[in-house]
């Protein structure tokens, strides 16, 4: 029996009971349509004036294409304010979570200490606790400290969403970096923290990128925490501002869809730039394109 070469092994992938390649592509095409159609429709609507947006029959391409909706969103003072708040909270939250998670992940990756496994299990378990449960206590707690309606409260509370995941991601990546590199620096008199800063961290940039993009995404998209803890007009974030479009008189869909598309951009851009790293990270390193 001849040795099967590696290239023929590639052809033996998981089989299913569809012998026709055609059917595979049809199904994928259908799901592609399902995935993109809602977004395309919202995009098209954002270029229609409010009346045409809710007109019947709906027009696929705007009869009266206009940039007024975007102009409205980008010049309305409270909306712009909320957009800025979103950036401040998301960037601040990302920086804080990546920094604290890097330190913690490093501790797990390079040290053995009492309670290591217990703490790790707690952190993983925490990941499964819904924020829902903490909304009420956090509301009361922050109210007592007087931190309700503050950006700093949003930055701090959003940490609970991302720290466990980031610790897990960074710890795993740190573990793949050979200890010898750090040992060499330590022998030369470098401190542990210095080793982290000058050797491990630079080598871990891909995982930092993944952690940062995920943190940004979770913060930017977060809706429930801000709406409970910081819904006053001047401190609220963009997602909540969009929600507040719902008024007694209904919704101006032209404006809202423009706002929605604007809200999409930051995370989409980040995901596009870092897509290879993201997919690798999210599939636990399995996908190598």
């Amino acid at each position: 029996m001849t040795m099967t070469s590696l290239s023929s092994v590639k052809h033996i992938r998981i089989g299913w009971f569809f012998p026709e390649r055609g059917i595979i592509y049809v199904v994928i095409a259908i799901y592609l349509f399902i995935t993109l159609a809602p977004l395309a429709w919202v995009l098209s609507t954002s270029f229609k004036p409010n009346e045409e947006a809710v007109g019947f029959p709906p027009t696929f391409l705007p009869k009266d294409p206009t940039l007024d909706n975007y102009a409205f969103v980008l010049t309305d003072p409270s909306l712009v304010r909320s957009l800025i708040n979103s950036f401040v909270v998301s960037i601040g939250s990302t920086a804080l979570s990546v920094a604290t998670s890097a330190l913690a992940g490093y501790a797990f990756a390079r040290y053995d200490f009492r309670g290591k496994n217990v703490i790790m299990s707690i952190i993983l378990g925490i990941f499964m606790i819904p924020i829902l449960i903490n909304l009420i206590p956090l509301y009361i707690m922050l109210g007592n400290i007087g931190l309700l309606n503050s950006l700093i409260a949003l930055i701090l509370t959003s940490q609970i969403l991302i720290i466990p995941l980031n610790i897990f991601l960074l710890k795993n990546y740190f573990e793949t970096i050979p200890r010898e590199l750090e040992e060499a620096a330590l022998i030369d008199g470098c401190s542990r923290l210095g080793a982290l800063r000058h050797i491990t961290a630079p080598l871990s940039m891909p995982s930092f990128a993944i952690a940062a993009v995920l943190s940004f995404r979770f913060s930017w998209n977060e809706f429930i925490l801000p709406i409970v803890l910081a819904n006053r007009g001047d401190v609220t974030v963009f997602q909540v501002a969009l929600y507040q479009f719902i008024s007694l008189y209904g919704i101006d869909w032209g404006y809202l869809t423009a706002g929605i598309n604007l809200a999409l951009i930051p995370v989409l851009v980040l995901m596009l730039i870092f897509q290879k790293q993201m997919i690798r990270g999210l599939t636990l390193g399995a996908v190598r394109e």
Partner: protein
Amino acid sequence: MHKTLTTISRRRLEPYLLLAPALGILLMFLIFPLFWNIYISLHDVSLTTILKEWAFVGGTNFSDLFEDPDFYTSLKITVVFVVGSVALQFGIGMLIAVLLNQQVRAAGVLRAIFIIPWTVSAVIAGFSFRFIFDDNFGILNYGLQTLGVPPIGWLSDPSIVIGSVVIANMWYGAPFTILFLTAGLLSINPVIYEAALIDGATKLRRFFHITLPLLRPFIVINLILITMWSVNFFDLQLIMTGGGPLFASTTASLYMYRQAFEFGFLSKGAATGILLLAMNLALAYGYVKLLRR
């Protein structure tokens, strides 16, 4: 190397110092509130009493809950929502993950596109589908009309509104399953399939006897995560329907939010929260027991 006592104890402290910031934040904003929740649920806390002394009421909040018909309705709606969401997300997620793994061209690009729904926010997804499902100007009803089918009250018909939210949730949540199961599929060593092929196994056989068993740990974790997320999630319901019409799309999680922040019954909300946590734990335990033969 000469080590002083301070060096040794400092080295022992180092990991704890490194952990301190992250753990500090988690303790203060996650773990402490979790336990405080229990305290809150045993007292009378509402928006009116929040600044005063909280009266101890023992189990009254819980019994109020069990006597509230809206709560039972929310439990029923939750079951529909969770079962529907999990079935659709898992079914479609698994299908796409497996198909994308079949030597499909441009699989990488496709995966990147398929992630998109997961990258948008609940606000974006919720409003998009609210727009699409609208009775009057929604594109879906227009499509039905051109096919000669009478319009459906996607968001106004109490008996199907939760189904509409389930559909939106499927769109929003399937990408996670696709990615997670893809990770699992790619972790299977192709050599195993080669051996099976040599032994003459058919595609169907290979799937059920090799792929599925090897995928099992991923499937279990995936199911646990998406089930719990469906139980706890209420953003879409809040945005698409506000819980209506008349509680018809109010899941238990949304019920909790509304009790606490729309009606001001914070302690009743806290009690609901504890029940939801118990539900989460029971489900996780159930899955592990069920799928670990």
